[in-house]
């Protein structure tokens, strides 16, 4: 019984693959001969193909009506989130891991808009409809809406690495903080935490400018190896960095160069449940240089205590950092 099911399953998958292959632009007789061999290989193959074909033809007949129905839904789209339409990423694993992937009714194109949210300690890789890939760091929120002429992404509080596919006709923009990052095809990191924005470019050119007409400040052009820091006050600073260090969170590492302990703790608090508090504000200003591997919190705390003269003790909320 199980064998028959597996058999049918395989036939169904192969039937789909064949129907797709036969739509290919360079169809020729070799496709035909191989197709014939496959048909004859198992009785289930022919049945599966005929079933797929009848559904395929139904979509052909109904194409215009289905398109009209789908665009009607897009136009009606009343609420930003319909719980009914919450999808489970790639088959369950994503939701289990805490990634909520909300899809608007318009999700199936035109101006599709989707929202991706990650929780504490969570990192997600998302492939967008245009093939661009986004790595989303912990506790981040990303809204994506694509239309014919534009690819728009809004990064709420959070951090993401964008690997954008080239499409000169559809510029890719990331709105974060009160700035807009505009690119054509490139790889860069955007971090927007509590009003502090940094944009780090690894490849291509990126323009960062004020969002909307009310925004203040000039647009800046960033090239690979540059990072723009925009403080909450609006003060901007351009630095030369190794982009791979900035991108290292994607591989579960945090790299710091003379960064205050308070910043490092804020990052760690997005990764681990047990929240860390710094007892003394002066301690929070202590600079850290080094790499922190995000495996488990106890190990991270031990390594941290080797880098700085600090120790951690359990507290009501989680951990309290004290001077050694």
């Amino acid at each position, binding site marked *: 019984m199980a064998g028959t099911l597996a058999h049918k399953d395989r036939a169904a998958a192969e039937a789909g693959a064949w129907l797709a292959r036969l739509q*290919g632009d360079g169809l*020729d007789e070799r496709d035909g001969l191989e197709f014939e061999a496959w048909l004859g290989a198992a009785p289930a193959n022919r049945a599966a193909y005929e079933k797929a074909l009848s559904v395929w033809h139904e979509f052909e007949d109904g194409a215009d009506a289905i398109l009209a129905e789908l665009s009607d839904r897009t136009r009606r789209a009343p609420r930003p989130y319909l719980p009914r339409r919450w999808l489970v990423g790639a088959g369950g694993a994503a939701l289990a891991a805490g990634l909520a992937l909300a899809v608007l009714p318009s999700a199936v194109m035109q101006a599709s808009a989707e929202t991706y949210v990650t929780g504490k300690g969570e990192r997600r890789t998302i492939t967008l409809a245009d093939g661009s890939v986004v790595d989303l760091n912990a506790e981040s929120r990303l809204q994506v809406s694509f239309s014919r002429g534009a690819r728009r992404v809004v990064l709420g509080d959070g951090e993401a690495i964008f690997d954008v596919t080239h499409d000169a006709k559809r510029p890719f923009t990331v709105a974060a903080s009160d700035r807009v990052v505009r690119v054509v095809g490139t790889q860069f990191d955007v971090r927007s935490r509590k009003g502090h924005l940094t944009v780090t470019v690894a490849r291509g050119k990126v323009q960062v400018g004020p969002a909307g007409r009310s925004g203040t400040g000039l647009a800046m052009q960033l090239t690979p190896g540059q990072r723009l820091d925009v403080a909450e006050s609006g003060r901007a600073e351009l630095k030369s960095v190794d982009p791979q260090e900035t991108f290292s969170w994607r591989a579960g590492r945090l790299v710091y160069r003379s960064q205050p302990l308070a910043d490092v703790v804020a990052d760690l608090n997005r990764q681990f449940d047990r929240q860390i508090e710094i007892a003394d504000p002066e301690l929070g200003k202590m600079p850290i240089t080094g790499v922190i591997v995000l495996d488990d919190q106890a190990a991270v705390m031990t390594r941290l205590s080797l880098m700085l003269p600090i120790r951690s003790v359990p507290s009501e909320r989680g951990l309290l950092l004290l001077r050694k």
Partner: protein
Amino acid sequence: MAPSGPSERRAVDSPLVEAFFERRENLLLFLAARTRCMATAEDLLQDLFVKLSTTDAGAEVKAPAALLYRMATNLLIDHVRSAQRSSRRSAEWRRDTRVQLAGEDVSQEPAADEAIISRERIRLLADAVADLPPQMGRAFRLHKLEGLSQAQTAQAMGVSTKMIEQHIAAAVRRLSERLRP
């Protein structure tokens, strides 16, 4: 109708005609992948039969099966071109005969070559497309519903043609499982 009965066979069939009857069903399924419906595939199969009966069968055909699929492929290419022309015509015709009833578009008459699919079924089909994963759904919509070629779809989405083929394959599988239990 397409040839199928033994009466249509000549006393002494050329190897090409023989090869045709041996794989008639396979050729039909091959053609049907690119036609609107099975009836159109049958028509094309008929055309194929006419073509091969009129070709000089005196010449030895080394690989009759390959030749048949080559002929079938050429027929499909011609067919798709003329189908595109006629579907544009019928779309215009439909626009002309459309009337508004209580804000709803109503066709006075369905196009003759179109099967009538119920409103309910259209909703089901649209639901199934809407529930595909976003990228897969987009590929299916552009390629199957909007009629772009796989290469055009790949260009529109900024991914490889191979990727589009994989999306379509997966979409077909999901859709046929869902819509035909």
